[in-house]
């Protein structure tokens, strides 16, 4: 049955900059904000924008994502006509290959799109946190009679070199596009949100697929090709919160953005709810001696210690006399008694023993491999840390690296 618009969500990446957090799941399945996963944001935005057909493109551990999405009922995407579909690469009788690029992922699934005969296709990335009404962007696209519309956000000029920059004329028409320019000409950063006219995009992808030198990427190939061909491409200015949570630092920051008296990102918005697969858990319990301030605490948590400026996900526990500060504690992680946890991300189901100190300044001469983490400690999923362990600032702790913290004289 025909659809006006279908969404294709690029959930592909392994997310290597998120390090051990993505060792067993795709980046979009990384927890965020006390009870969500990153992918809940684009999915909820779609549902709240009345887009009822979403293809999720992934080639990294599709099973975990498939199990998470299920029938789509938690996002109200269990539709008779449409719904949410996980689309991993597949073999045909002629060939079969991994997705070679973002555009190739869409191209390989053209028959999925063709069955809905959509006028427009909305392309999203699976690693951004924001609330956006795509209906408004579509109206803008139609009103401008554009071939493609790209959502842009004004970023501080000094940070523009980290983004794909859209240079526009006064009318908002895109005149050129530069990926991470050393000397940016403008500060209109692409948010990785595109609306294309499907038939036109299909033509460009077909030609791109026939070009052996192409990387089959939207940013590197399709968009420049369309610009060079003189297609009308317009920038849709977005105002509001938007964050790429592709790094440990930005993931931590985005969680902290939910805190404070007037949070930078306020998810308590009845008109724009973020849906998720709610775990079936009892309410949280804060005991007699607990002291919780300026924090988010989700259902299933038990707090007996002190929690400051932190986010506790469903089923997390902070035991008595423990202090948790500036930290993000993922679902079902348990922090034992008398611990100190300072500026850390603690992975799902991690178990921290008693009197463990996390995030202490490194001793003289001690070096920590923190190229992914900066000053944030990252404890991997399912890691069990024995009592009395001391974890220095910026460290990454996994089952493999645990030994270097428990042996070798680093004990308290």
């Amino acid at each position, binding site marked *: 049955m025909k659809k006006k618009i279908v969404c294709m969500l690029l959930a592909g990446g392994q997310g290597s900059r998120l390090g051990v957090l993505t060792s067993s799941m795709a980046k979009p399945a990384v927890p965020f*904000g*006390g*009870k969500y996963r990153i992918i809940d944001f684009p999915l909820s935005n779609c549902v709240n924008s009345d887009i009822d057909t979403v293809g999720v493109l992934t080639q990294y551990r599709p099973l975990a994502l498939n199990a998470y999405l299920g029938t789509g*009922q*938690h996002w109200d995407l269990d539709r008779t006509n449409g719904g949410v579909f996980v689309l991993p690469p597949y073999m045909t009788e002629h060939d079969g290959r991994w997705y070679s690029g973002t555009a190739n992922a869409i191209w390989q699934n053209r028959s999925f799109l063709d069955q809905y005969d959509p006028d427009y296709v909305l392309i999203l990335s699976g690693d951004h946190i924001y609330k956006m009404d795509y209906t408004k962007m579509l109206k803008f696209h139609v009103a401008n009679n554009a071939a493609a519309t790209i959502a842009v956000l004004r970023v501080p000029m000094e940070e523009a070199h980290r983004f794909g920059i859209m240079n526009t004329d006064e009318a908002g028409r895109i005149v050129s596009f530069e990926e991470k320019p050393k000397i940016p000409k403008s500060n209109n950063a692409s948010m990785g949100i595109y609306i294309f006219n499907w038939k036109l995009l299909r033509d460009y992808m077909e030609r791109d697929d026939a070009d052996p030198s192409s990387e089959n990427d939207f940013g590197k190939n399709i968009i420049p090709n369309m610009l060079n061909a003189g297609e009308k491409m317009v920038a849709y200015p977005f105002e509001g919160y938007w964050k790429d949570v592709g790094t440990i630092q930005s993931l931590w920051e985005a969680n902290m953005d*939910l*805190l404070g*008296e007037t949070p930078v990102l306020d*998810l*308590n918005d009845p008109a724009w*709810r*973020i*849906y*998720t697969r*709610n775990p*079936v*858990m*009892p*309410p*949280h*319990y*804060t*005991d*007699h*001696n*607990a*002291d*919780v*301030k*300026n*924090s*988010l*605490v*989700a*259902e299933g948590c038990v707090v007996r210690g002190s*929690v400051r400026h932190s*986010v*506790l*996900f469903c089923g997390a526990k902070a035991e008595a006399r423990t202090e948790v500060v500036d930290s993000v504690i993922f679902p079902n992680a348990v922090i034992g008694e008398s611990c100190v946890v300072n500026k850390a991300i603690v992975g799902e189901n991690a178990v921290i023993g008693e009197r463990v100190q996390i995030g202490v300044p490194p001793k003289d001469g001690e070096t920590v491999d923190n190229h992914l983490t900066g000053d944030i400690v990252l404890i991997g999923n399912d890691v069990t840390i024995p009592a009395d362990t001391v974890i220095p600032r910026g460290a990454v702790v996994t089952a493999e690296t645990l030994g270097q913290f428990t042996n070798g004289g680093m004990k308290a």
Partner: protein
Amino acid sequence: MNQEAFGLIFTGEHNPYMRDLVLSRAVAAVPFGGRYRVIDFVLSDLVNTGIRNVGLIVQKNYHSMMDHLGTGKEWDLNRKRDGLFLLPPFSTKDNTGVYRGDIDAFHSIMQYIRRSNQRYLILCGSHIVFNTTFDAILRQHRDTGADITIMYNEDPRFFPEEQNRDLRLLLDDDGMTVKRLEWNPRNPGSNFRSCEVMIIDKDLFEDLVEESYSRGAVDFVREVLLPRVRDLKIMGWRYDGYVGRIDSINTYFMHNMELLNAGAARDLYNMRHPIYTKVKDEIATRYGDWADVHNVVMADGCMIDGTVEDSILFRGVTVERGAIVKNSILMQGVTVRKGAVLDHVILDKNVTVNAGRQLTGYEGIPLVFRKNLTV
């Protein structure tokens, strides 16, 4: 999956001791335990037993129940084969649409009972909360060849002035066979109280209902079970976990507050058999800089910037800076404004307490404010 049994929950009963909490809803639909309704417990017990066919008899005021249960998908009961059946009364030539008692209701849904192809019926009331599965009682029922097996627990607490559907079991020396039943006794001969769950063979149930209906009987326990204790083989099955009987405002308050004790919380919130409920997609609860929270059970979606002690907070409660809430139950959507002071109160859904108000009940006499009120 349990293909041998189906469940039938009777929610038609009225209870005057619940006062303002049941003005617009059945006892089964009363919010309980921070994020549940009373009915969620017995319904989840059935689902966690693997029961896939559940009938729910509703009578008056069932809007909030329908809204809560929907298609049953939160309980995984939106099935093509069997599933959740809402059974409201309907008017026919010999039925005016209002049940005089449970026998009327059972008679009027006989079609559903006949169509159910499971052998055993698990007949449940809807004002008692506990968290278990019915596997063991079903096993005992089969093994003993009983006609009827009644789930009971030992409960020495007795509130004669609020007695409601109080069924007591007096057992034989074997500790199982029921030799006498007492219904709302003035001087109970036993502390073994029915949990309003009984297993009964479907065929026998049909016979008992039709026979008693034809002679004008109204109440199944009083007019069928009590007189026939000697010619039916009635057994008891003892449950030792936590049981909360929601019979009155006082017991409602007491059982909610007992969730602040580790024992009751461990039993009722046992994650081995989770209690399912309608999902609201609330955000996690946010504690502000001025939050001072001790010994509190709290659901998602709350905004806390005041003092809260020894209380139960449902989803989406706001406690503003400087407000003090003690020994209270705040249901979904309640707002307590700056500087208000509450002690021993029950605020029903969406009640707003304005700045600086002081509301104080007493132990055993909590103040109740009905839905949507602004104080």
